[in-house]
C-alpha cells in the first residue's frame, strides 16, 4: 500500500465525472463534520460514528458499480449512503429520528437504507451487512440477473467468524460478490494489528481461494480501479474478490469520544499527507480537470446542501408514536398492548 496518490494515472472517465467524485467526497466530509457537531449538541439520539477521512473508499467503490448493483454498509456508513445517492436531508433527518428521515425514523444512523438506490442497509452488527450482500449475490445468481453486490465490513469484522463463513460460501459458490474490508486500523478502541493473528487480513482472505488485494483507501482512483475490476470479474461469472482497503478515521469511534489509544500526531500525519480530498483535489488541479473556481463552487454547494439538510431535519416533525409497532410482520399485526 501507501502508493502516493499521484503515481497512478487518472482513470479513463469524463472530467465531469471526476469532479462529481470530488463533489461527493466533499459533501460527505461537510455532512459528517456538521453531523458530528450536531451529535455533540445532543441532536442525534444515540450519537453516530463519523467516517471523516474515509470518503475515498465509499465514493471510489460506489462509482465503480452499476445503478442496479447492491451495497451493504457497516455501523459507520454515512459515507456509503451519501455516495450511493441518498439525500443529505433524508439522512440527517433519519439521524435525528424524525418523520422526514429516509426510513421514517425506524432506522437511524446505523440502519440507513434506500433499496431504490441499491443501498441495502448499513448494519449495526459487525460483519452483518456482508451477510446480506452475500445473500443478495446468491439471489442475483438464482434469478440469473447481471446484478452484483458489494459488502463492506471493518477490520474489527475481520476477527469475527461470520465474515469468514460468508467469504467461504461466496468463494465455493463463485457468487457475484465484492468483499471490502474497510480497514481504518482501529476496532472501536483496539488497535487492530494487536488483535489480528498473523497480522494480515488480505493473506487470511487469500486462504479461501479467491483473489485478495490490499488497496490504498486514501486514493479514490485506486479504490475505484480495484472495485471496478472486482465487479467486472463478479459480473462475468468469475466469482468474488476480497479487497482490504486501508484507510483512516480522523475522529474517534463515535462522536465525542475521548481518544487515548492513538496520538494526535498520528492523526495529524494522516490529515496532512494522506487526506483523500486534498490529494484528489491536487491531482485534478494538476491534470487541468479542476479550477480553483470550480473547487470553490463544489465546497459552496456542499455547504448549502448540508445547511438545507440541517434545516430540514430541525423542522421535520416527529413520527407518530402510535405507528411504532406497525409493520413488524404481516403474520403478526402487532398483537399486545403498548401501554
Amino acid at each position, binding site marked *: 500500500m501507501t502508493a502516493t496518490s499521484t503515481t497512478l494515472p487518472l482513470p479513463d472517465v469524463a472530467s465531469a465525472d471526476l469532479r462529481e467524485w470530488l463533489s461527493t467526497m466533499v459533501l460527505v466530509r461537510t455532512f459528517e463534520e456538521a453531523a458530528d457537531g450536531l451529535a455533540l449538541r445532543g441532536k442525534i439520539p444515540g450519537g453516530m460514528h463519523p467516517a471523516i477521512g474515509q470518503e475515498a473508499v465509499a465514493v471510489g467503490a460506489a462509482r465503480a458499480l452499476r445503478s442496479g448493483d447492491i451495497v451493504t454498509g457497516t455501523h459507520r456508513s454515512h459515507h456509503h449512503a451519501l455516495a450511493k445517492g441518498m439525500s443529505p436531508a433524508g439522512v440527517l433527518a433519519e439521524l435525528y429520528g424524525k418523520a422526514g428521515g429516509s426510513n421514517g425514523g425506524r*432506522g437511524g444512523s446505523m440502519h440507513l437504507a434506500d433499496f431504490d438506490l441499491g443501498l441495502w442497509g448499513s*448494519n449495526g452488527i459487525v460483519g452483518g451487512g456482508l*451477510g446480506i450482500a452475500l445473500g443478495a449475490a446468491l439471489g442475483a445468481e438464482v434469478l440469473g440477473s447481471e446484478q452484483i453486490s458489494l459488502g463492506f465490513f471493518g477490520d474489527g469484522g475481520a476477527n469475527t467468524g461470520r465474515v469468514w463463513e460468508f467469504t467461504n460460501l461466496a468463494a465455493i459458490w463463485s457468487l457475484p460478490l465484492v468483499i471490502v474490508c474497510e480497514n481504518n486500523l482501529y476496532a472501536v478502541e483496539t488497535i487492530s494489528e494487536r488483535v489480528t493473528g498473523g497480522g494480515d487480513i488480505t493473506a487470511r482472505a487469500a486462504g479461501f481461494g479467491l483473489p485478495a488485494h490490499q488497496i490504498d483507501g486514501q486514493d479514490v482512483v485506486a479504490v475505484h480501479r480495484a472495485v471496478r475490476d472486482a465487479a467486472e470479474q463478479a459480473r462475468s461469472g468469475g466469482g468474488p474478490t476480497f479487497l482490504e482497503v486501508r484507510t483512516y478515521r480522523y475522529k474517534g469511534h463515535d462522536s465525542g469520544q475521548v481518544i487515548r489509544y492513538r496520538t494526535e500526531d498520528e492523526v495529524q500525519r494522516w490529515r496532512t499527507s494522506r487526506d483523500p480530498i486534498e490529494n484528489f483535489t491536487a491531482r485534478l488541479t494538476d491534470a487541468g480537470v479542476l479550477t480553483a473556481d470550480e473547487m470553490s463552487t463544489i465546497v459552496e454547494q456542499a455547504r448549502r446542501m448540508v445547511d438545507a439538510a440541517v434545516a430540514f431535519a430541525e423542522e421535520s416533525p416527529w413520527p407518530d408514536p402510535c405507528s411504532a409497532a406497525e409493520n413488524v410482520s404481516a403474520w403478526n399485526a402487532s398483537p399486545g398492548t403498548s401501554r
Partner: protein
Amino acid sequence: MAGPLQRRRERERLERLARDFAVNAPNSATAGTGAEPEAQATYSTAYQAGMREEMIRDATIFVLGTDLYDRGGHFSQVKGLGPEFGADRVRDTPISEAAMVAAGVGAAMNGTRPVVDLNFIDFSYGAMDELVNQAAKVRYMWNRPVPLVVRATAGVAQGGAQHNNSLQSWFMGTPGLAVVFPSRPWDVKGLLKSALRGHDPVVFLMHKLLTGARGPVGGEDDVVPIGSARIVRPGRDVTLATYGYGVVLAEKAAAAVSGEGIDVEVIDLRTLAPLDVDTVAASVRRTGRALVLDEAPAVAGPAAEIAAAISDAAFWYLDQPVTRLTGRHSPIPHSPALIAGLLPDEAATVDALRRLARASGPEVAAS
C-alpha cells in the same frame, strides 16, 4: 453420529410412534375405530410433497443446508428433491449456519424464496444474529419483505442436551418472526405452503418424534393459515391447549378421561407466533377450565405466554386458575430414564386433567 444399528432402532422406534400416532391422528377418518387409517403421507413425506409442489409452482423457491441433495436431510425431509430439481435448487452448504441463514436473508430480500434447512433447530444458535438481528428486523427497519423459511426439526427426543433445545420460546419472543409447529402431515404441508406464499420470515419447526406419523394431506392449494389454531376434539369440561407432540399426548389423555365423564376440548395451536388467542379464549369461555401442555421448560416458555393470554382474555370465565404442565427447567439428558423424569407424559396429562376437572376450591392448585 449414530451408527447403522442405532439408526435402525431409531427408525423402528419412530415407526412405532407413527403407528401409535396414526390411530389417534387428528381428523383421521378412522381415528378411534381401530381400523387402518387412510394414510396418505407421513409428517416427513408431507413436507417433501409440499416442497415439491411449491418448487414446481414457483421457480424462485430453493432450499439450502447440509446433506440435502443426496441424503435428503437428516430426517429425509427433502429426500428425492435433489436429483429432481438439481443442485441449484437443492443446495448443499458447508456446516456454517451463519452463512446459510445470511445467504437466505439476502436472497429473500432480492426476490427469491429460500428455505434454509438447519436439520436441528439447536444449530440456529450459530445463526442467531442472522435470524434475529437481520431477518426479523428488515421489514420493520426498511420496509423490505424477507420471504424466508428456516426449517428445522425440534422437540425432545434423544441425542442429549445440544440436540433437544426448545427454542420456540426464543423465537416467539422475537418480533418479526412467525413460529409454526405442526403436529400432523396435513398441517405440515398446509403451513409450509402458507410460509412459501407469504412475505415474512417463518421459523418452521417439526417435532422429531412425529417424523413418521401418518395421516391425510391436502392438495396443491390446501393452505393452512399461519396464526390459526385448530380444535382437534371438541369438549365441554376442560380446554387443553398444546402443540407438536403434545397433541399426541393430549388426544390419548382426553380419550383416557372421557370414560370418567370428563369431556376435554383439545386445541392444536399449530402456530406459536402469532398465537391464535381467540380460538383458545373462546374455548375457555365455554369450558371454564384450561390446561396448557408443553414439553418446553416452564420459565418464560410458550406455556407461560399461553396461560397469560388465557387469563387476559377469559379470566372471568375461569372456574380454576390456568394449569401449566410443562417440561422441567433443565437441559435434556442422555438417558431415556432421565428424559422421562423431565417431560410431561400421558399419565401426567391424565392426572392434570382429572385434578383440574374436579377442582372446586382454592386448595387445588396447579400440579
